[in-house]
């Protein structure tokens, strides 16, 4: 004989969205770097940018930094509107 029990888990509802269209080329694009203030995230992004700069010429690079890892990112309108791509370092 079985007992019927109620599911304690919260239902998560979301509509799937496709990821943003990709860039054919990074040249003359605006690159965003989001530093979540974890140790070495800034250094990591510095070296990523340095390596990317050797291969591509960006129109601009915008950097923002969270005040701590545990709070939402302080996105500015300029950052959201101008960046063609964003690299976020890093969940740690």
């Amino acid at each position: 004989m079985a007992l019927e029990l109620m599911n304690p888990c919260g239902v998560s509802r979301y509509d799937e969205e496709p990821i943003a269209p990709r860039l054919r080329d990074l040249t003359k694009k605006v690159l965003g770097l989001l530093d979540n203030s974890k140790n070495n995230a800034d250094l990591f992004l510095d070296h990523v940018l340095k390596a990317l700069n050797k291969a591509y010429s960006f129109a601009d690079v915008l950097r923002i930094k969270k005040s701590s890892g545990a709070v939402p990112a302080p996105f500015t309108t300029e950052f959201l509107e101008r960046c063609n791509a964003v690299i976020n370092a890093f969940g740690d």
Partner: protein
Amino acid sequence: MCTDEFFALGKAEAEILGMPGLPILTIPHPMARQRPERVAELAVQSVPEIIHILTNDAAGLEREYKAKTVVSRAKLRYKTLFGDDFSLEESPDKFKAPTSLEAINKLLYARGWTDGLPIIPPTEERVKEMISHWGWNPQEIIGLLPPKRGEASVEKIAINAVMAGCILEYLPVVIAATKAMIEKDFNLYGLQTTTHSCTVMVLVNGPMAEELGINCGYNAMGQGNMANATIGRAIRLVLTNIGGASPGILDRATFGSPAKYSFCFAENEAESPWEPFHVERGIPKSLSAVTVFGVEGPHNVNDHGSQSAEEVLLTVSGVLATPGTNHIYLGGEPLIVLGPEHAQIISSDGFSKGEVKQFLYQKARVPLELISRGNLDRFRKIWPERFSGLGNGESVPIAAKPEDILVIVAGGQGRHSAVIPSFGATKAITVPITDRDGQPILVRERKSGTSRD
């Protein structure tokens, strides 16, 4: 980007945002203590994948990263009951379980739905009885709980409250605490997913505290009282099952704390020389309220010798001023629980709560020489205004301003108080305890005794 240990958290967040195929590049954990040369090396090694993610076909990337899995060091014991994810929209509201209490607990434990202790089986009868006692609409959604943005309906909250062992009368407190936790400034997402050993502490004020028998006196923060134990436990189950923060998976607490099982008590308003905490927060004394705090476990302040306010508060300052909490570099709201005897000593010397906070702000300072070089470098980046220009011999306060220090009175007789450090990136939230119509619940006659008489 995520380190491999935190990939699961990043992937869950991406799924909740509707992008299960969001490309997440993984790097070896931990990054925090890597030497600069190694950070540079790993960064350069990541660049080809970064370019791949930014420039290749989006549909192909989605398939690739949707399928990506990373083995965590956490020993995962959870199985899913409903396909891949028990919180999916199509998961059944009810499920078949064995009839014996032991077998039910074994099943729910294996699903990761308990806190490791036996639960009361959440039958429809028990859940309906709890909800109808208060006349709530079971489908009313109180809010979405992170990290999985699970819908906290009245029914789901009641299911977890039943499992925790709550009696019918406790439901409004659990609902009020859930409402408070969802407030943006509480930063529940941060609290649920951090490596920090923090939990949600629930403080109850007002007439309902006494009506429900919530302990505010001897052993208030300890075991033995049903209301304290089960309300706090219900909150933890709500956070785990509705919010989805399962230990080792989305709850990344390095070692957690016993306070994560249950942390709920009432303020000892009768023995406090000052106004109750909820009154300080703007709620009339005659009404009842819940405050949620994102905090660590309590640290006792043992002071049997001090004879004056300054002396007692000096001891409290000493316990408060430690480099190992988040206060010095994130600020936040340190919570001080004064035992009634200490509170009387302090107030007898004419100290108001405001003056207590001022004193602690001035005295509870962490000398720079107690902060490691590595931490100083990090803190200077996170809070440059506080740390720049500080030299040897100087010290750092444990709050951004005196008003951020919170003071309550609880406990029985004895010359003890407690410091409860805050997670830092969170603010305490106080809400009135209300009924289904949003009206404050006044202490009222029960329908027919308590459900546990």
